[in-house]
């Protein structure tokens, strides 16, 4: 309204229907002094009567002592009135329907909407605003002396109003600046609980509260105590269960949570002796405020004073409610961010573990005359500690190794790496597979024992040109051996896993390879593969598969595919719980005699 004289004045009156009439008459006089015509004065008197009646008729019981207020802003073209009420508030529909003709009520809003050019209703914390706007039918007139004097007196009233508003604004500013500082500190390293304690203390000072208790909602548990004023144990329960209706009857915090409304207590409505808040709130006054965002309960903030008759002012209540809501949201966000960070860290850890795991597998397996050697490694979703290796020894033979480190992730992958390097180093000095496991156990025991981990392993030594292999195992699944006769056997030589006892001595067992031998070293990820019903695969299907391969003198690559297909078909889409690893030694089929 540039270059337009705007007059402001206000009427504040007790929450009483008779006072509404007086306020309407005074408002009419005030508007008449500003040159409004009879018709629009009548309209405004009616509009204000309806608005004032509603503000009085629907006021919350605890707010009946608070005044209702008409704020006027009159320009040459418009009259704007803001009606401040302390009702629970309502939703003002865009279109208000007329009630049935024989209904005795329900026409006030229709009149307001019809007579005003604009009507908006805004709910606030403890105070709501009905904003009404109507274009003037009679434009503003220049003021004579008497009117000017009248206006001057109203200007003085307005100045008082303005001072009050300034005071409220200053309070709001203080609240806002606190929230800004609060947000800035949120990014620091404080734990949410410490953070909440510190900042609720600040809010307590601003709102002149003597104590506070903040509880946040935890799924499946209830309202968990997160922060409270003071260091002493006040007998507050750590968790209040929302499912216990009996407690809801006596707990103002639970009532606020279940009603999703502020629950007040004072001398007239004291906190019951059985209420967990009684120690704090038993003789004082205050309220429990539910922190609700997007219709979801985040927690309950309770604030109070030790004196029952020292109630909070509307502005202080507003600060506490606003800050409580903001704090709840921020703490929830912080917790969410921490969960996200943890998820990302875990994912990164798994990537690292997988990388280590891949680097352990031999890039090329040694060539063994008369045999094919082939390996397979399938990582489960969570990386485990499986690995296999094969390398020639000084004697000209080949050592086959397979191992499974207990556990998942980086620790398991790290021990697999250590095991591999120790295995290669030990192969030079220890000699037989049994001696090698004995040495490996002594070497790894201190580290494994410290972190309470263990390794299962199986070593097979294939001498140069020989058909008698040596097997040593440490808590590992048996070796499968099948021959061209179509028979398969599981050869067990289990000792304790590595890392269980420091002085375990492992021995090897010699096995003569049958003609057309297929030898399978594998980890328990195969035998413990599960079908959709959770049933384990066990050993038999693998034995049969290997026997069939040996009998038919299948190439190793073919047998590998058959073994993988066997497990996949059994799992039928169920993801493996553990790594699946094997090393297959398959004797070549004899060359057919040259044709003559």
């Amino acid at each position, binding site marked *: 309204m540039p270059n337009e004289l705007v007059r402001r004045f206000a009427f504040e009156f007790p929450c009483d229907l008779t006072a509404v009439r007086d306020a309407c008459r005074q408002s009419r006089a005030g508007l008449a002094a500003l040159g409004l015509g009879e018709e629009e004065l009548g309209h405004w*008197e009616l509009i204000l009567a309806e608005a004032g*009646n509603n503000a009085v008729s629907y006021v919350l019981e605890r707010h009946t002592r608070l005044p209702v207020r008409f704020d006027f802003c009159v320009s040459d073209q418009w009259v704007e009135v803001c009606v401040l009420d302390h009702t629970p508030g309502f939703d003002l529909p865009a279109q208000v329907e007329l009630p049935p003709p024989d209904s005795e009520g329900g026409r006030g809003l229709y009149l307001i909407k019809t007579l005003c050019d604009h009507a908006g209703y805004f709910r606030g914390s403890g105070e709501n605003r009905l904003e009404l706007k109507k274009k003037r039918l009679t434009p503003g007139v220049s003021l004579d002396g008497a009117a000017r004097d009248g206006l001057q007196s109203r200007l003085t009233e307005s100045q008082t109003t303005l001072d009050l508003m300034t005071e409220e604004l200053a309070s709001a500013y203080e609240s806002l600046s606190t929230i800004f500082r609060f947000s800035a500190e949120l990014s620091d390293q404080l734990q949410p609980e410490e953070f909440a304690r510190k900042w609720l203390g600040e809010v307590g000072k601003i709102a002149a509260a003597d104590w506070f208790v903040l509880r946040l909602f935890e799924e499946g548990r209830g309202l968990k105590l997160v922060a409270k004023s003071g260091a002493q144990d006040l007998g507050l329960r750590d968790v209040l269960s929302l499912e216990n209706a009996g407690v809801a009857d006596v707990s103002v915090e639970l009532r606020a949570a279940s009603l999703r409304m502020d629950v007040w207590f004072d001398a007239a409505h004291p906190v019951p002796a059985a209420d967990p808040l009684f120690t704090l709130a038993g003789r004082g006054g205050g309220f429990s405020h539910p922190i609700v965002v997007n219709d979801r309960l985040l927690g309950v903030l309770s604030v109070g004073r030790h004196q029952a008759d020292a109630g909070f002012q509307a502005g202080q209540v507003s600060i506490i409610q606003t800050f409580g809501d903001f704090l709840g949201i921020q703490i929830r966000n912080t917790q969410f961010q921490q969960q996200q960070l943890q998820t990302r860290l875990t994912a990164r850890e798994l990537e690292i573990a997988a990388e280590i795991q891949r680097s352990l597998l031999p890039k090329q397996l040694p060539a063994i005359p008369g045999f094919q050697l082939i390996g397979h490694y399938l990582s489960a979703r969570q990386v485990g500690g499986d690995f296999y290796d094969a390398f020639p020894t000084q004697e000209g033979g080949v050592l086959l190794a397979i191992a499974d480190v207990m556990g998942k992730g980086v620790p398991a992958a790290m021990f697999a790496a250590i095991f591999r390097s120790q295995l290669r180093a030990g192969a030079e000095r220890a000699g037989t597979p049994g001696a090698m496991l004995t040495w490996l156990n002594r070497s790894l025991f201190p580290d494994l024992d410290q972190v309470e981990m263990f390794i299962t392993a199986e070593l097979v030594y294939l001498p140069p040109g020989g058909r008698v292999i040596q097997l040593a195992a440490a808590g590992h699944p048996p070796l499968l051996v099948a021959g061209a006769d179509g028979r398969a056997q599981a050869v067990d030589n289990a000792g304790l896993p590595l890392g269980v006892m420091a002085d375990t001595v492992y021995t090897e067992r010699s096995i003569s390879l049958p003609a057309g031998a297929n030898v399978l070293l594998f980890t328990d990820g195969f035998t413990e593969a599960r079908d959709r019903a959770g049933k384990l695969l066990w050993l038999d299907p693998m034995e049969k598969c290997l026997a069939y391969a040996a009998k038919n003198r299948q190439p190793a690559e073919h047998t590998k595919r058959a073994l993988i297909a066997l497990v996949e078909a059994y799992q039928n889409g169920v993801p493996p719980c553990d790594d699946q690893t094997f090393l297959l030694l398959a004797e070549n089929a004899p060359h057919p005699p040259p044709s003559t």
Partner: protein
Amino acid sequence: MRTEKLGDTLLVTDIPTLTSDTSRAFKEYVNGSLGPEHKFVDVDLSTARSVDSNGLGALISVHKTLCLRGGRLRLLRPPPLVAEMFQILQLDKIFDIIHR
């Protein structure tokens, strides 16, 4: 507020306001004044400085009582603003409004 009994009609006059703070008293006063012979109530609104929706509720209540007796409520000489309100709320279709 005064009443005058005119055969089967009760005439109500000198009504200063018919608003939220007076509507209940109006309703009780009229109902208390109704005799068994009264089928019609004429409410003279010419002196009513203000009428609001609560006052209308009181008029509708009396009207419903009269309808049960086979009668009705008539409104006499409403001020322009009150007449406009009846029109806005479409109550001019329910009440007999006599402007003379």
